């Protein structure tokens, strides 16, 4: 392994890491919001929420992200909708992650005692404020382990977006391997960059969960 090669590749990897982080971050925000909306719609039993979300969840979970990305990138233009690879990547990650986040939020909401929301209603809070101020804070704390597991899963899933020509870490690594045949250097940097991104997330999540457990809601 050539140190000079590693040094020469570093700027391109840094740029690619930024691109990976950008779609991972936006995908996480998107899927969290989507998951929250779905869970709340089910919680309030909005008309039509069950069947619509059930179809979405099955579609989202039972198709690979690669296939979802192909559809967005190559399929949608045939319907007259042309998105860049970055937009497709974020939409794809949101579509995939939304169902997992919805499940995490749903289990959190269901774990909060119904008496808690009734207690808030009895004080005169409406259903919305009761959810926001009383039920959700407890539900999200309970959903934290599932949420962080989903976040790590989603960040790793970004590694397939080079399939639609998004210039992420894998894209750069494949580029160097194909052009220069410096396989060892390119792969070593790839592993190192993913670890640098994911290790802090994993360790931070574990620490956060410990703190929540220590805070120990309930009686």
């Amino acid at each position, binding site marked *: 392994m050539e140190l000079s090669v590693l040094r020469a590749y570093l700027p391109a990897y840094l740029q690619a890491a930024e691109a990976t982080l950008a779609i991972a971050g936006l995908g996480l925000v998107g899927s969290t919001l989507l998951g929250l909306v779905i869970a709340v719609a089910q919680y309030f039993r909005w008309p039509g929420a069950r069947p619509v979300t059930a179809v979405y969840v099955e579609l989202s979970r039972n198709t690979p992200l690669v296939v979802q990305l192909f559809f967005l990138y190559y399929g949608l233009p045939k319907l007259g909708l042309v998105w860049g690879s970055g937009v497709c990547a974020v939409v794809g990650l949101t579509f995939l992650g939304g169902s997992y986040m919805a499940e995490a939020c749903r289990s959190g909401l269901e774990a909060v005692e119904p008496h*808690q929301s009734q*207690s808030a209603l009895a004080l005169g809070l409406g259903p919305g404020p009761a959810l926001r101020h009383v039920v959700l804070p407890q539900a999200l704390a309970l959903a934290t382990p599932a949420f962080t597991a989903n976040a790590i899963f989603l960040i790793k899933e970004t590694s397939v977006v080079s399939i639609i020509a998004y210039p992420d870490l894998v894209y750069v690594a494949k580029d160097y391997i194909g052009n220069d045949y410096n396989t060892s250097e390119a792969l070593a940097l790839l592993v190192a960059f993913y670890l640098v991104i994911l290790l802090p997330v994993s360790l931070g999540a574990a620490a956060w969960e410990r703190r929540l457990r220590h805070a120990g809601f309930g009686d």
Partner: protein
Amino acid sequence: MTVPPVLRLEAVRQQYPNGLVALDRISFEVAKSEVVAVVGPSGCGKSTLLRCVNGLEPIQSGTIALDGAIITGPGTAWSKVRQQIGLVFQNYELFPHLTVLGNLLLGPLKVQRAAKAEAQVKALALLDRVGLADRARDYPRQLSGGQKQRVAIIRALMMEPQVLLLDEITASLDPEMVREVLDVVLELAGEGMTMLIVTHEMSFARAIADRIIFIDAGRIAEQTTPEQFFTAPQTERARQFLNLFAFAPPPGHHETAGAAAVQTEESSATTSDSNSLELHE
């Protein structure tokens, strides 16, 4: 012009979706500053009654009026109504993610849009009154059951309700904590708070209530003064119910316990004479 009662229930009927009729033909009034205790066997509908008054359970027919205004029709502004009707639960239902002070301030700040400084002064004064002035910054999990229930009571009082509904508020407490909670309720009664109390504490009901409502199988079986109810209940069901709270030593345990034997004889007036005689021997 007569003042309308704080609460008036007329022919209230409540049926659960599974067909079970929890309440039927329930009619009574609670006047201002009156304390009414609702007693009855487990599952008779007492707690459901309170939940109906607060709108947490819908009723199928009949009416409930607060201060003369019917609150059971469609389009009832429940948020407004519930501010007038405080409800305290058996299991406190404090919000575990908020401090004691946060629990007390949530209603005033989010519902009544009160000024924070003022609401805080009021909360601290109420905490002081129930002997918890130093616990404002603690979380509910750091409090004992009795302390939690006292906080739950003053959380309801923060909204300055016209009537307070207490749903078996001592049923989850250790015996030595029951007193500290009931003392708070007695004090409120002394100040003229209107209250509808569901309780299993018979001596407490007797001491605090102006009127006792005995519910059996979803219906009011008896409605009378505490004196009348506890000394001379009119219905067989009430007699049976009250007997559950009277203990006599088992036969032969105290050979010379004449007093206990007499009490057994009185309280089992319906059992056959030969049974009573056996107990004497």
